[in-house]
């Protein structure tokens, strides 16, 4: 076995042999002050050279980039199908259809139309609403789903907004009178578990259709003036429009509140035009200042 090389840590004296010297001949330090120096590895190239480091990092980056790009493009179709299916599941959840095994079939059965409308209340296209991307939604491009549950017409409005940490989104299903809420669904990207994330829980979402004891209650979206009166606030409010916020999640709930105000307002004209005339309290008084409302909507968007 080749002799090891020892170096005194105190003075730097170098010694070769199988053991460290008991006393350093230069500074008289004990054997414990010596440490083994490993001979540099005999390899074809020096792994500490700059060139090696540059080539190595380039190599690693290229491999990883190709790997990720490859995996991503191979899996993309499957992922897109999953995302579309998940969207359908969420839309069905707003109609209180949950735990459905065959989501796609149920969706085709329940959802009758996927419209695109504009803020003036005119139907722009009678299909393709499902494919409108969130970032493309504006007052001339508003997706709206029309469903039929138990032979009753329901309108489903998709919403997106900002929570505390990331995006929040949801669907709100309205009854045929175009104002009372039939069901809701909310979800979020990264709200705090136990706090903001509770907007996705049944306890919060049930408030839109039930009271604490499970009895049916009716909440409305628009008030007589055509403004979005539905609100999420801590404490008490007008029972027709008030939803109690989650304790400790004020910012997330403000985000939901803001999402209602911004995203539901542009749908008002369309819903008004389609509301049955029988709904006297809503349908009659809403003509008071629709122009002003539309202007306000434009500003907010």
């Amino acid at each position: 076995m080749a002799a090891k090389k020892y170096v005194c840590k105190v003075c730097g004296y170098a010694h070769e042999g199988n053991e460290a010297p008991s006393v350093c001949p230069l500074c008289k330090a004990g054997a414990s002050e010596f440490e083994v120096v490993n001979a540099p590895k005999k390899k074809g190239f020096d792994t500490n050279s700059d060139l090696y480091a540059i080539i190595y990092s380039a190599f690693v980056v290229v491999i990883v980039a190709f790997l990720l790009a490859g995996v991503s493009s191979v899996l993309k179709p499957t992922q897109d199908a999953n995302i579309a299916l998940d969207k359908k599941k969420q839309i069905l959840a707003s109609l209180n259809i949950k735990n459905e095994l065959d989501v796609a079939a149920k969706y085709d059965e329940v959802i009758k139309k996927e419209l695109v409308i504009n803020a003036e209340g005119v139907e722009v296209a009678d299909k393709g609403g499902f494919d409108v991307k969130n970032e493309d939604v504006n007052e001339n491009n508003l997706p709206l789903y029309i469903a039929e549950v138990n032979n009753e017409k329901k309108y489903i409005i998709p919403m997106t907004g900002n929570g505390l940490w990331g995006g929040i989104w949801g669907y709100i299903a309205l009854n045929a009178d175009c104002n009372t809420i039939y069901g809701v669904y909310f979800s979020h990207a990264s709200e705090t578990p136990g706090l903001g994330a509770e907007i996705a829980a049944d306890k919060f979402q049930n408030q839109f259709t039930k009271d604490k004891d499970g009895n049916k209650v009716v909440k409305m979206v628009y008030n007589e003036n055509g403004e979005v009166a539905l609100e999420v606030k801590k404490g008490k409010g007008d029972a027709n429009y008030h939803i109690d916020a989650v304790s400790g999640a004020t910012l997330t709930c403000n985000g939901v509140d803001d999402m209602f105000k911004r995203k539901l307002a542009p749908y008002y004209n369309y819903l008004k035009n389609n509301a049955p005339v029988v709904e006297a309290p809503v349908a009659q008084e809403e003509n008071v200042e629709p122009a002003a409302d539309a202007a306000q909507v434009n500003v907010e968007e």
Partner: protein
Amino acid sequence: MGLLSKKNKEALNTPLFKENPVTVQVLGICSALAVTSKLEPAIVMGLSVTIIVAMANVIISLIRNTIPMRIRIIVQLVVVAALVTLVSEVLKAFAYDVSVQLSVYIGLIITNCILMGRLEAFAMQNKPWPSFLDGIGNGVGYAMILVIVAFFREFFGTGALLGFQIIPESFYEAGYMNNGLMLMTPAAFILIACIVWFQRAKDKSLQEK
């Protein structure tokens, strides 16, 4: 060397108690605070970290002799980030529900100090198999603390476990109240501190003189 020789067993066992990444090495505290307000995300996070740290340990251990010392941290980071992205892509395609659950935590895994700590301290010096065991050991040690903390936080904070109500309605009617503090981050600090306290009281060798 056997698959579970004494040294390998040590690599697996010591991170569970004596060298626990959270309570002794004080690594991964950030995520231990963030995901422990409920039991379910804590379990999911613990499981994903275990898998990722074991896989990253093996990969780094395999290429440890080729890595230039000066850029080793960057290489480690690239491996971890690539691995996490890969796992997340695969989950999105084949287990979409799980990936939705994990969405927040995937990002947190990359920044988890336990990963970098183990890659740097263990995988760079050891062979793949002990590195794998070390990864599993540290992941489980981390998950264990997360689950304990999450158990107390969810139980006292919401009266439920894994979303199921445990404390009966009659308790609330009799005046019992959920402890809102438990859902806040400081509660995680307090609980982790209690675990550290308990562990050090039990094991004298961990106490500083």
